[in-house]
């Protein structure tokens, strides 16, 4: 085989010209694509469009898949009931229609970000979510940058409202309420000296809450005899339980998520622990009943909501919940989701009455809504609430509940054992 002869000079020039032309075409195509994208992006930014007279879209990004789904399912129920309450409350009065759009925010940060982005592109007036504090730190800045009001129904890790002026929450503050359950346990067993603590060291909620528990113990002169660290995905706790029980604890404090907590309680009891158990907000859901069953009985938990509260709004919420979900009393997480919807719905109606939603763009309406939301006070299933200027919930009524299981061990309830009125408590703490 012979090597091919080099091309003649005119042929080479022709090829160079062709390449140059090709490059020019490619550059023009790219420039056109970039220009088109920018134009499309500008023209489809819903914030710049005038707000119509139709129904306002309210977005919710909550966990429908993954581990946090246990909370997300309760939240979905609360939001749907909130929407139903809103429809019925305004049936006979002129009101601005609000349409709820729920998207799966998953249980991790990328899913929450994707859901927030999707809902913002769809032109929501405000957002509810995400489910986990860890997700909020990733997704909330996106809403903040685009000026979309966010009401968090369940994340109370320290610093969430401080992400920006568009971020707020209705979830209660563990730093204030978590010590109440410790207080109740020590009131029942004043001689308690030996306390074992379990927490998930790879979970932002758990690490924040356990610090609050430990501070509460220290304030009462108690230092844990053992602190057992677990992992979020753990379900077999025999090794840490074995180590903890060797210290003969009189009180066990758990700050873990629901499934892990249910397993921990069950395995603690099966391995012979008979003392009191105080649990954190991660176990604030009836979804633990099927896991720890009869062993759930007697655990103490501080709550921001009591289904036994007999205010008109809570009676309505309880009735709606029972209609939708059988005989079960509503859990805190559903009540908080309902409240998140309620405060936004009420703020929208007030703003509508003041004319703050007329002849404005969606972006301006969002800004107006945030101001209206933070300036209002609300009578909710959680009790009367308001907001600090930076979006922190102001709630004063808290509860300590004890889980009481039915004899068959399959079902139970959070029975109210103590109610506390705290002055101007605002959220600094941890939630699932």
């Amino acid at each position, binding site marked *: 085989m012979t090597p091919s002869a080099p091309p003649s000079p005119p042929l080479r020039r022709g090829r160079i010209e062709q390449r140059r032309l090709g490059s020019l075409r490619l550059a023009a195509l790219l420039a056109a694509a970039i220009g088109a994208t920018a134009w499309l992006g500008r023209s489809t930014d819903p914030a710049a469009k005038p707000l119509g007279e139709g129904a306002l879209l309210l977005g919710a990004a909550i966990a429908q898949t993954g581990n946090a789904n*246990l909370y997300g399912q309760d939240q979905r129920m609360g939001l749907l009931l909130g929407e139903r309450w809103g429809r019925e409350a305004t049936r006979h009065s002129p009101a601005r229609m609000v349409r709820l759009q729920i998207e799966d925010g998953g249980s991790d940060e990328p899913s929450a970000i994707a859901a927030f982005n999707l809902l913002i592109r769809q032109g929501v007036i405000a957002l509810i979510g995400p489910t986990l504090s860890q997700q909020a730190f990733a997704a909330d800045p996106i809403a903040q940058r685009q000026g979309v009001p966010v009401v968090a129904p369940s994340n109370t890790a320290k610093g969430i409202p401080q992400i920006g002026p568009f971020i707020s929450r209705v979830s209660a503050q563990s730093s204030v309420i978590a010590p109440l359950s410790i207080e109740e346990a020590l009131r029942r067993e004043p001689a308690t000296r030996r306390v074992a603590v379990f927490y998930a060291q790879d979970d932002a909620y758990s690490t924040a809450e356990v610090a609050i528990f430990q501070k509460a113990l220290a304030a009462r002169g108690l230092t844990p005899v053992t602190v057992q660290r677990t992992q979020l995905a753990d379900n077999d706790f025999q090794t840490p339980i074995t180590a903890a029980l060797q210290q003969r604890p009189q009180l066990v404090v758990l700050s873990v998520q629901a499934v892990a907590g249910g397993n921990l309680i069950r395995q603690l009891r099966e391995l012979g622990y008979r003392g009191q158990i105080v649990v954190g907000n991660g176990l604030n859901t009836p979804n633990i009943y099927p896991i720890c069953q009869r062993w759930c009985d007697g655990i103490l938990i501080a709550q921001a909501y009591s289904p036994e509260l007999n205010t008109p709004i809570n009676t309505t919420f309880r009735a709606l919940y029972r209609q939708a979900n059988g005989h079960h009393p509503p859990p805190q997480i559903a009540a908080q989701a309902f409240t998140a919807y309620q405060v936004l719905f009420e703020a929208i109606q007030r703003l509508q009455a003041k004319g703050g939603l007329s002849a404005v763009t969606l972006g301006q309406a969002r800004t107006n809504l945030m101001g209206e939301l933070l300036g209002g006070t609300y009578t909710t299933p959680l009790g009367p609430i308001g907001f600090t200027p930076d979006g922190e919930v102001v709630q004063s009524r808290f509860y300590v509940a004890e889980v009481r299981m039915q004899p068959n061990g399959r079902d139970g309830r959070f029975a109210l054992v103590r109610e506390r009125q705290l002055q101007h408590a605002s959220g600094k703490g941890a939630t699932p």
Partner: protein
Amino acid sequence: MIETLLQTLLNGVAGGGVYALVALGYTLVFSVLGVINFAQGALFSLGGYLTFLLMGGRIGVNGALPGWGLPGGLPFPLALLLAAAASGLVGLLVERLAFTPLRRRGADPMLGLITSLGAGVVLVNLLQILMGAEGYAFPQGADALGGLPAALAIGGARIRTIQLLLLLVSAGAVLALPLWLEHSRQGQALRAVAEDPTTAQLLGINSEAMLRLAFFLSGALAGLGGGLIGVSVSLPGPYFGIGYGLKGLAVLVLGGLGSVPGAIAGGLLMGLAEALVPSEASGWRDALAFAILFAVLLLRPGGLLGRRQLEKV
């Protein structure tokens, strides 16, 4: 001190037994087809849910049929066996959907990794739709063991009865499988297919049937593991088997691809390594397990018993 060590060892061996079950499932399929069935973790989840339903458990409020359950409930051993068999049948379905079409078209067997992963994802999502994502614990908890106490004292160590049962059943399955492979006619036929399918076919062995048998057994082992773990630590959600599937995969590599004794040894080593990590360092537990895997592969690239074990399944 001795009691703690004994307890830790029992915990480790019980956990390792389950890893070995999953790894054996992988091993069976790998031996006959040369690929890894990524749906194994989903079959593990399926086994847990089926055992739950067969024992009389009811679907939770977030499932497709809230409150639905089978009339009555089977005793745990029977429910576990039936669930394992049903998982085996679904394993056959996975083979039919994810592997057979590729094999018939002469496609690269490695493509089966993706199709089986897809089958696993579909299966887990179906479980989520049908059962919801809530956690389930078995209807009678420790009482499911026919009135046995919740925990037993062995040599001063206190171990949950369910954990002991888990240890015994997984040990039984793990020991029975090599014996069956070695001494039964079908086991020998399976080994022959694993060695050389063409020659086995010439000798009158139905290679396709043996392949299906491998998938059935593989699915059944995963289902057995899922049922045992479910009764021990509840079902935390449809995805719970995926973690065990991944750990089983690590055990498969640790023990040596395609080696039955390797899968058992790898499983036990992994379980013990995890159990021996103190709670203060629990964040390093998975890191330690995979560090062991890394170290073993550096020293023995074929896995613990991969090279010495000349005779595959």
